[in-house]
């Protein structure tokens, strides 16, 4: 059992120069076989291992990660959390996640820095207003706290916003106060620490190279540290899921594209909520360090380069400067790109597959971070019971042949 993190632990460790903090997880060599191998040590994967151990009593688990845990898209996103999706299926899934987020710091005894500062989606034209009001009504029927804000109410919350003197004036916004941001490293590390405590092996720098199957049943995973046998394999590999699925002979309806984000130099607090705009493609929040965190759109073509086109950043920065003239002379510190796997209906796949013992949690596209604990929780259920939880049952692979798509292009808020 690890020591609890607390204010007393902070003070105590300050006296020893912060050199004696406990090790958060072991780094074991892989065993010959496991009950479950989770491929991908991001938030979703580590969370899956955590909930498998905690809620389903499966302890013989390995999480294998190509690099370091949380070094993929978990560490690349813009950390926005919300659940204001249109359809019932998505609203239940994303709100399940927010409810878990609300308790996660306490549950894991690790500070998620979860800050429910609200998420605002701006409307810039008549169509936006109608579409958003429809979405708000749908959200309220599903028990979500979305509400409509008039321009003057927006101005009160975000005084620095230029609402009228621009090409596409701000006409209103959908606002979800329970939305917000969290620290992305913390969710990976928190899940990893508590999973490790329950006996899960977290194996870093171990690349999954192919999934071995025999007579329609999964056998194990060939990795850079040798072959590891497994009864069940859960793939949570984000942009590279389709590459891995192919090695098991499974084709998924995913397309991998670069998605970019950037942060500015740190400044004093100027914006205390998350503001997104679908129409002009600008979204921005301010981190606790004071940096503006800005998300750009995806590139219009498939790529695994972990970069993106400059024109995509230019487009989003142009819109940001028009919406917030105060940011006009700011310098951007860093820009990066990650590879996201996009589904035809902009909703994820959390599903069994045609191969026995092989499960996929993928297709989160541009918005997987918010769903991390919820997705992990229902995916663990799917893997443990070999059948979906009622929340993720609609997010199956069959929807691409029976036509029950969950079209969330409108609520996804990032252009793709």
């Amino acid at each position, binding site marked *: 059992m690890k020591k609890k993190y607390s204010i007393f632990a902070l003070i105590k460790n300050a006296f020893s120069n912060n050199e004696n903090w406990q090790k958060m997880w072991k780094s074991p060599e892989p065993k010959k076989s496991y009950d479950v191998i989770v491929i991908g040590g991001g938030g979703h994967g580590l969370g899956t291992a955590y909930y498998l151990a905690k809620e389903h009593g499966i302890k013989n688990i390995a999480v294998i990660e190509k690099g370091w845990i949380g070094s993929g898209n978990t560490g690349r996103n813009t950390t926005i959390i919300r659940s204001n999706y249109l359809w019932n299926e998505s609203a239940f899934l994303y709100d399940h996640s927010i409810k878990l987020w609300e308790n996660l710091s306490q549950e894991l005894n690790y500070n998620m820095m979860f800050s429910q500062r609200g998420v605002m989606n701006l409307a810039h034209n008549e169509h936006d207003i109608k579409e958003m009001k429809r979405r708000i009504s749908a959200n309220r029927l599903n028990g979500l706290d979305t509400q409509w804000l008039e321009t003057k109410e927006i101005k009160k919350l975000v005084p620095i916003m230029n609402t009228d003197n621009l090409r596409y004036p701000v006409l209103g916004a959908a606002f979800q106060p329970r939305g917000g941001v969290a620290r992305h490293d913390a969710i990976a590390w928190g899940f990893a620490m508590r999973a490790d405590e329950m006996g899960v092996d977290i194996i870093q720098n171990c690349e999954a190279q*192919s999934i071995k199957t025999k007579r329609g049943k999964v056998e194990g995973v060939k990795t850079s540290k040798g072959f590891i046998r497994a009864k069940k394999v859960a793939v949570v590999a984000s942009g590279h899921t389709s*590459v891995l699925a192919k090695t098991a002979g499974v084709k998924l309806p995913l397309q*991998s594209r670069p998605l970019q984000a950037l942060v500015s130099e740190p400044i004093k607090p100027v914006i205390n909520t998350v503001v997104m705009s679908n129409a002009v493609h600008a979204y921005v929040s301010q981190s606790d360090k004071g940096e503006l965190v800005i998300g750009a759109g995806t590139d219009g073509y498939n790529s*695994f380069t972990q970069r993106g086109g400059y024109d995509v950043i230019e487009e989003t920065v142009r819109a940001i400067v028009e919406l917030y003239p105060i940011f006009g002379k700011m310098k951007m510190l860093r820009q990066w790109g990650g590879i996201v796997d996009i589904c035809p209906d902009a909703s994820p796949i959390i599903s069994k597959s045609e191969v026995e013992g092989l499960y996929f949690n993928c297709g989160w596209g541009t918005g997987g971070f918010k769903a991390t604990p919820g997705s992990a929780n229902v995916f663990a259920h799917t893997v443990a019971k070999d059948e979906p939880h009622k929340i993720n049952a609609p997010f199956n692979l069959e929807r691409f042949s029976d036509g029950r798509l969950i079209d969330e292009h409108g609520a996804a808020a990032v252009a793709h």
Partner: protein
Amino acid sequence: MILINCPYCGPRDQSEFSNGGQAHVARPENSENLNDKDWGQYVFYRDNPKGIFYERWVHSHGCRKWFNAVRNTSTDEILKIYKLDEKPPKLDSFTNTLKTPSGEPKVGSGNFTVKK
């Protein structure tokens, strides 16, 4: 940023073009007799390789003509551009530079072109 050599206009910036996804996807014959699964495959499933990929482009902000390309999606290198009525080149005529099945170096980013 990719420079695309439009077969009609010459080299232009990628932002002038729109991508049309995988090339050479034929609509199945007798589609009225197709079952839901096969029809779903045709409508929603496309190749997504990390490596060499046939794809379509249209010069939207130029001549507005469609053409095909072979591109390495792990480096964004365009290997061949050919017109719609030309025969597609064989994929094995290009060398795949990927070192591992998933194409990643052991640690860190898979950004070969920048690391070189």
